[in-house]
């Protein structure tokens, strides 16, 4: 059952904003949602024809609920009903609910599988929570006194840290649907009134927070079943614990996998959480002190988030969003506020409130929830530090870290200076944590298994080779000497690489491979010492965290700054690559069930032609006095490329100085279809740049950000390699094939990629020297043999074994 929802408003902006607000309830899920708002030429108004089309589009056969603002919206919606097909009309409910409140309840209710009439009823009841809060509760009819001979009762305690909020409430209502039972719920802890369990919005009025006791009373023939289902749901925290990761991460039995290159030798880090001390009370306005501290931590987290998003990817950055949410969590703040009002000082109140939250999580049965406790402690400590606290016993945080798993938040703060290496019992080289460890330069071996991890924890000294995937417990002097020799060799190798960084990367047999730098900000361009070009400039940096789109002049200045930092070397400017997973303020987007398969990259650019036109103008202006590549992301078909090229031609015309002589055009190859159709694109491009991160996700149907499937999303999977080969084959002799994903920065993969036909590798600033050095070791004939062998491998592990 997937009821569609249509939003009708006089104002497009109002409708989009309401949809965005409602989308926050769904975390990307939800059924069809269409907007019919404003007039075609812009301006306020409603259009019955547009509404009828939206209704038809939103109808998947299970009905549609239409929410409207006022006046003509209602009349137009009624008229629209006359325009849709008869069978559709019978499934449409025009809902009188207030637009914003109603929409939020409706999307949650629809996502929970409610039928159209129920979604509409829920939406109409949406005012109850607000009017109740403001003391103007509508006269709710006293609950019908049900016959008691079949009555069943029970109680449960709310276990979720965020209480019985909309999503679990929808689970609750959904579980009762279809049962012949009148179910009444009462918040015993608040001594509140009884409400119907059939109504999402009434369940919301329970105000059930974590720890509250809820009494259940049911009557009817299915009463017993109803109570049984509710108690079972409650015991399972209403499915909340299962939400992010239900599958335990696979822990192979002792197959150590190299996850981050480098050698680490040292003592095992003292286990246990390193807490920050709670600073002594400081007089003054405690609310204000805490607000200031939270504000500075929030700024810091946002900066880290933006950096992670630029350097690693949106999925990896999301963890920091979660930390910001925790920092501003209204329930946590309410708890802290109560403590402050009771006279506790800011630091103690914050520490105690967050310890409570972390304690609740740490005791959870679910592995994922337990891991979240680390996030909570992390946020706790950051704020305490901002309030003047210091980390207790800094030295305790030094040494090789041995753990079952590592959260991204934990990985992101590890410092190679104090953490020579990381050894994990589980995880995979493609998990969040491993990606972050590579980015930070901390050597790591993962998947060593519980047995080896257990022995490692007991060890005095560990020797770890993150390139080879070796972990030696309490090494004897000879082994220790061997690892030291490897470390020295690695150091020499890196020194040699640095010394030669300005030299071109030429294989032993004389083939030049360009090594570029991936740039997420002008600062990255400066850091890309020795790069032959900026092979990927993520122009998103100019668009994030703004209220409005950057002007042509602003963009021109930003791209010029990168050109200047690259000192005349070519810059490859990728046009804006965003999607519905992270909408920009000035670019409201409808909620998509799956934004990574939705309107993003070139699709978004073509849907917002002005945005693209402005960016291309800025790019063309710079291209008149700097060698520039323009690169279009997420291209799936040749018509998209043709449309983008037309937009580029128009930009050239608008700038009015003719076509810049050294302007080249290319596409990102991230969609498997584009790789397989490379020959069709080849006549119209100067280069292909393979985005192995997204190509891998799309090829293996596994999201890198989801650690439960991250192990599947391995760029060394022979399926991905075959697509790289297909791209190179389709490119022919005149189209350059580049790789700008994370795989390009893997020294061990350099020969394989060159063997597959890749002639440009664009990598993070820190990897330019080592990748150039790796290319210098490549022999093209042998590389081609290696590529052929890799393509014949059954899986990524076999390919990795070939590379070692």
């Amino acid at each position, binding site marked *: 059952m997937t009821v569609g929802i249509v939003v009708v408003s*006089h104002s497009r902006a109002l409708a989009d904003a309401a949809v965005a607000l409602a989308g926050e309830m769904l975390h990307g899920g939800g059924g069809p949602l269409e907007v019919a708002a404003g*007039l*075609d030429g812009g*301006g*306020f*108004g*409603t*259009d*019955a*024809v*547009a509404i009828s089309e939206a209704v038809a589009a939103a109808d998947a056969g299970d009905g549609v609920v239409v929410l409207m603002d*006022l*006046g*003509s919206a209602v*009349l*137009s919606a*009624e*008229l629209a009903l*006359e325009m849709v097909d008869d069978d559709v009309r019978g499934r449409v409910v025009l809902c009188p609910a207030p637009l914003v409140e109603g929409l939020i309840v409706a999307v949650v209710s629809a996502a929970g599988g409610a039928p159209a009439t129920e979604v509409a009823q829920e939406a109409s009841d949406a005012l109850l929570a607000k009017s109740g809060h403001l003391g103007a509760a509508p006269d709710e009819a006293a609950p019908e006194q049900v016959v008691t001979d079949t009555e069943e009762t029970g109680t449960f305690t709310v276990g979720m840290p965020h209480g019985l909020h909309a999503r679990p409430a929808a689970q609750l209502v959904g579980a009762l649907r279809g049962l012949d039972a009148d179910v009444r719920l009462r918040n015993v802890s608040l001594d509140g009134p009884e409400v119907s369990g059939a109504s999402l919005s009434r369940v919301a009025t329970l105000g059930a927070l974590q720890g509250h006791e809820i009494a259940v009373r049911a009557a009817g023939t299915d009463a017993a079943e109803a109570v049984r289902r509710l108690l079972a749901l409650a015991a399972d925290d209403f499915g909340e614990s299962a939400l992010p990761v239900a599958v335990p991460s696979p822990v192979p039995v002792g197959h150590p996998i190299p996850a981050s290159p480098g050698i680490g030798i040292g003592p095992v880090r003292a286990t246990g959480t390193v807490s920050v001390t709670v600073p002594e009370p400081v007089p003054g306005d405690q609310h204000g002190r805490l607000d200031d501290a939270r504000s500075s931590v929030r700024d810091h987290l946002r900066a880290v988030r933006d950096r992670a998003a630029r350097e690693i990817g949106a999925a990896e950055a999301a963890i920091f969003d979660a930390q910001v949410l925790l920092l501003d969590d209204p329930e946590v703040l309410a708890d802290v506020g109560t403590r402050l009002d009771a006279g506790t000082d800011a630091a103690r109140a914050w520490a105690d409130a967050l310890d409570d939250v972390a304690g609740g999580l740490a005791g959870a049965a679910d592995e994922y929830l337990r891991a979240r406790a680390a996030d909570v402690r992390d946020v706790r400590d950051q704020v305490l530090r901002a309030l003047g606290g210091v980390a207790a016993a800094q030295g305790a945080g030094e040494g090789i870290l041995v753990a079952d798993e590592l959260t991204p938040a934990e990985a992101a703060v590890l410092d190679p200076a104090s953490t020579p290496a990381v050894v994990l019992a589980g995880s995979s080289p493609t998990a969040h944590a491993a990606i972050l460890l590579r980015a930070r330069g901390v050597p790591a071996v993962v998947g060593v298994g519980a047995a080896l991890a257990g022995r490692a924890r007991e060890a005095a000294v560990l020797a770890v080779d993150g390139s080879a995937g070796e972990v030696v417990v309490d090494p004897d002097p000879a082994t220790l000497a061997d690892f030291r020799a490897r470390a020295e060799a690695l150091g020499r190798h890196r020194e040699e690489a640095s010394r030669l960084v300005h030299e071109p990367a030429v294989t032993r047999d004389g083939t030049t491979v360009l090594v570029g730098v991936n740039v997420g900000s002008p600062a990255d361009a400066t850091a890309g010492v020795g790069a032959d070009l900026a092979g990927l400039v993520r122009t998103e940096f100019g668009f994030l965290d703004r209220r409005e789109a950057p002007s042509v002049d602003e963009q021109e200045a930003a791209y010029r700054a990168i050109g200047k930092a690259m000192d005349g070397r070519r810059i490859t400017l990728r046009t804006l690559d965003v999607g519905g997973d992270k909408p920009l303020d000035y670019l409201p987007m409808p909620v998509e069930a799956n934004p990574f398969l939705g309107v993003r990259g070139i699709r978004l650019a073509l849907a917002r032609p002005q945005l693209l036109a402005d960016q291309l103008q800025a790019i063309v202006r710079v291209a008149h006095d700097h060698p520039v590549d323009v690169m279009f992301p997420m291209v799936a078909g040749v018509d998209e490329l043709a449309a983008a090229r037309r937009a580029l031609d128009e930009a050239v015309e608008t700038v009015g100085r003719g076509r810049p002589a050294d302007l080249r055009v290319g596409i990102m190859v991230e969609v498997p279809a584009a790789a397989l159709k490379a020959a069709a694109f080849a006549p119209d491009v100067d280069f292909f740049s393979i985005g192995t991160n997204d190509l891998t996700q799309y090829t293996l149907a596994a999201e890198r950000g989801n650690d439960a499937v991250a192990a599947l999303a391995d760029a060394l999977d022979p399926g991905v390699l075959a697509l790289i080969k297909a791209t190179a084959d389709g490119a022919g002799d005149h189209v350059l094939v580049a790789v700008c994903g994370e795989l390009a920065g893997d020294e061990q993969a350099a020969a394989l990629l060159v063997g597959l036909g890749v002639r440009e590798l664009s990598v993070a600033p820190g990897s330019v020297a080592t990748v150039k050095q790796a290319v210098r070791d490549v022999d093209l004939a042998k590389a081609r043999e290696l590529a052929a062998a890799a393509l014949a491998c059954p899986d990524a592990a076999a390919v990795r074994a070939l590379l070692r």
Partner: protein
Amino acid sequence: MADVDTDTLQRWLRVFAASVAEHKDELTALDAAIGDADHGANMDRGMQAVVDGLAATPADPAALFKQTGMTLVKSVGGASGPLYGTLFLRMAPATGGAASLDPETFAKALRAGLEGVVARGKAEVGEKTMVDALTPALDALDAALGSGQSLADALRAASAAADEGRDGTTPIVARKGRASYLGERSAGHQDPGATSAALLVAAAATAVAEQGAA
């Protein structure tokens, strides 16, 4: 008595469009007093779109009414979009697909249109809406045709009745549309919807009189 052909019906729409354009500021001023100050602009935009669409001549009155209704629905934006749109959309089937309309069929089509407006807006006479001009107009039209008057004369009577109905909206306290939010304060202002509706009836009288004169 000649039937009303598509040429005359198109003239009706052109005259109405010109009349709305001429009274655009007045309609907007009336709406500014008790509504959201867009009636003149909205109707003008809608009727210009209708006139622009006339270039492609529809086959029969039903097609013309349908095209007009759809255009208004799509381009007016405010409440008058679905209301005037409904008026014309409901007129279409009431013509029975005739190539030209005899006076009774034309009156019947207008009546069907009015019924559509009443159903859509849930407004009755005396609630300060376009219904207050259209209802007495169509009552007068039916009465005049029943007493054997020509369509031209009957439409003149209808137009006079519409004007009277329009003037009668001034003292009423609005109970529909945004004007109703003003409550008592809406009294003392002439209703913009009734005003444009009276223009519509007057335009029909003008167009049919010209057909008779031609």
